[in-house]
Each structure stands twice: as C-alpha cells, then as structure tokens.
C-alpha cells in the first residue's frame, strides 16, 4: 500500500512564525501535492511538484512556498504565518500526471495560527 506520511498532525503557531509542514511518500512517486482544506470550500491546490527541485503553482500559492530536495519528501513552508492560514493541510502523491491517475493522500496536518 502507498503510504503518505505527514509528520505533524496538529500544530499551533504564532502569527509571523515560519512554519514547516513535512510530507514523505514511500512509493517512488514522481508527483507530490499540497492542498488546503476548508469547510465549504473543498480542497484547493497550493503547489505541486513533478520532479525533484521542480514545482508549479496551484490555485492559491500566495503566502506559501515549497521545497523538494529528495524525491520522497515535499515540504510546505509558510514564511510568516497569518491567522487566515489556519486550516487543514493535506499532502498527496501520484505516480504520473496523467488524467485518471490515482492520488494518494496523507492524514492531514491541522494548523492553527494564533
């Protein structure tokens, strides 16, 4: 089974802090994604990466950056956290970028910014 692991499940950070959310997948997938999930809005794509050191903006990249130095690891960075970034963050991975390819999700990281 594919396993996507988000190491931090629950975080509380102060406004202005730098926040790192880490994600690791164990299936040698090319593609990794970061989504944000908010009630009534569904999932929105922040960034995705299709290869090591490669990244592409999603629908809501403002206020976020990402890093992919190794194939299995994809980090989401909030340079200066703000209260409107309080949310559930989901990491995901997939083998290819083709339509129809299954995306596998981690269990999510709940971030509260106070």
């Amino acid at each position, binding site marked *: 089974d594919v396993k996507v692991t988000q190491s931090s499940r629950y975080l509380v950070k102060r406004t202005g802090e730098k926040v790192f959310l880490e994600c690791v997948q164990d299936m040698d997938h090319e593609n990794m994604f970061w989504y944000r999930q908010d009630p009534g809005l*569904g999932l929105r794509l922040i960034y995705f990466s299709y290869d090591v050191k490669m990244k592409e903006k999603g629908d809501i990249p403002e206020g976020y950056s990402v890093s992919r130095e190794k194939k299995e690891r994809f980090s989401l960075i909030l340079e200066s956290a703000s209260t409107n970034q309080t949310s559930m963050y989901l990491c995901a991975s997939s083998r290819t970028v083709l339509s*129809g390819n299954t995306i596998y*999700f981690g*269990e999510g990281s709940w971030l509260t910014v106070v």
Partner: protein
Amino acid sequence: AQSVTQLDSHVSVSEGTPVLLRCNYSSSYSPSLFWYVQHPNKGLQLLLKYTSAATLVKGINGFEAEFKKSETSFHLTKPSAHMSDAAEYFCVVSGGFTGTASKLTFGTGTRLQVTL
C-alpha cells in the same frame, strides 16, 4: 475549463437503507472521475474511479457509481448503508492539463450521516 458540483452538502439515511450522493460535472475533455471518502480527522481515501472504461464502476465497501455522459453525472450509490459509512465524500474530476499536470477539481463535499 472544468467544474464539479455536489448537489447535497448533507445527506442523512437510516442504517440499512440505500445511499445516493449526487455529483454533476462539466469538462472540455474526456474526464476521469473519482469518489473519495474522508473519515473524521483522516486523509482522503479512494473509493472508486472512472477512466473511460465501463460506465458502471464498483468500488470498495459496496459503493458503486455510474458515469452518464448525457446527464454529465457521476452519482455514488450503495444499496444498504452501514454506520461506518458516516463520513464526508468528495467527487473529483480530472481532465486536461494545466502546466505539466492533469488538473484535478474537487467538489465541496457531501457529509453522510447514518442513523440507527
């Protein structure tokens, strides 16, 4: 352009009765369609997917969905609800490319409540 609409934000059924979660989509391409389930405080798990093969797709836990191109629908059904089915369900459409990846568009979710 593509979009997906989950017609009900909340559905409540009694245990043992049928489940119907409705999803309509629009897409400029031949889409792939997915249903994912999310239990409380968990990530999303794939229930089933349609990728241009058989229009009736069977998934895990007794769920199935039928792709109807003429109605642009992909409704999720189960003959008999179980308490463990209580969760949030997301319909997802995939098609076309933006940049380097096929674009996924998520519905806003349907919360299924199962009562005794």
